[in-house]
């Protein structure tokens, strides 16, 4: 019986896990889950000042990696592919150029990469990773919002019970939690700037919720 845990990278690559390029190419327009909200027009016509700034980072490549944090060969392979090591500390994240990695669980990471590079990176993983692991392209399942501004923290406090004080939620920390009865993976990029990875199917609800919750501060759409 072949032992998945002991497979070399070559053996593992030879199993030819069926992967396909999910992005047709840059010449075909992709539509984000918030396409209908038309952030580009809102950014032009809407208010220019307010306590909340919102931007969508659409059509990024979302890769969910599950592997063994105690397997040094796997960790080295990830570093070879992405040029940066997996964050092993709970609730931490790393960023390197266009790539960013979020700790999701002791054996799970969410990697965001530029949309058009996703397939290439997936392919590299298939060739480089030894042992038992899983890499899933979940780009179509979620989208990324960036929430910033003077009232960003106050707005988030309405949505989640997580402590957002800088002492317990420093820059770079990432938490998966409840967000306005939906869920989100929240990462602090800056003192007043947060990244939310949200479910595609909840994106319209969250968009409506943010508009409502930011009424008292003023909402500026950026695109």
């Amino acid at each position: 019986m072949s032992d998945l845990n002991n497979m070399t990278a070559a053996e593992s690559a030879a199993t030819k896990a069926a992967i396909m390029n999910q992005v047709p190419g840059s010449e075909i327009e992709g539509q984000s889950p918030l396409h209908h909200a038309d952030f580009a027009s809102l950014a032009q016509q809407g208010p220019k000042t307010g306590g909340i700034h919102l931007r969508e980072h659409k059509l990024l490549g979302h890769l969910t990696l599950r592997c063994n944090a105690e397997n040094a060969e796997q960790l080295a392979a990830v570093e070879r592919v992405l040029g940066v090591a997996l964050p092993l500390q709970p609730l931490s994240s790393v960023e390197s150029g266009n790539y960013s990695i979020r700790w999701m669980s002791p054996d799970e990471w969410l990697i965001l990469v530029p949309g058009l590079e996703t397939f290439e990176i997936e392919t590299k993983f298939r060739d480089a990773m030894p042992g038992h692991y899983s890499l899933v392209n979940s780009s179509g399942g979620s989208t990324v919002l960036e929430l910033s501004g003077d009232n960003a923290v106050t707005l988030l406090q309405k949505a989640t019970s997580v402590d957002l004080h800088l002492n317990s939620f420093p820059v770079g920390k990432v938490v998966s939690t409840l967000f306005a009865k939906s869920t989100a993976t929240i990462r602090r990029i800056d003192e007043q700037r947060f990244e939310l990875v949200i479910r595609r199917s909840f994106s319209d609800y969250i968009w409506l919720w943010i508009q409502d919750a930011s009424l008292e501060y003023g909402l500026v759409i950026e695109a």
Partner: protein
Amino acid sequence: MLHIYCPHCAEYREEDEFHCAGQAHISRPLDPEACSDEEWGEYLFFRKNPRGLHHELWVHAAGCRKFFNMTRDTQSYEIKEVYKIGEQPSVVAE
């Protein structure tokens, strides 16, 4: 509202991020075919309902989505300890 320490995330979170999945340390019989109806029935359906210390299985459903164990006092709701799957509780009923 319980304030629960997730041993995987290594921090406290509010109860609404978690689900309780019932009694902990229920091991499936190694040879189900060899069980009597009574043994199999005990395994499937019968659970403890103590007043006092109870070992429970919880899952950090909205967070890291990992399971862990918790020893809780069902009378005072006090959480005595949390520990990972595969570990044994250090606080046990007399």
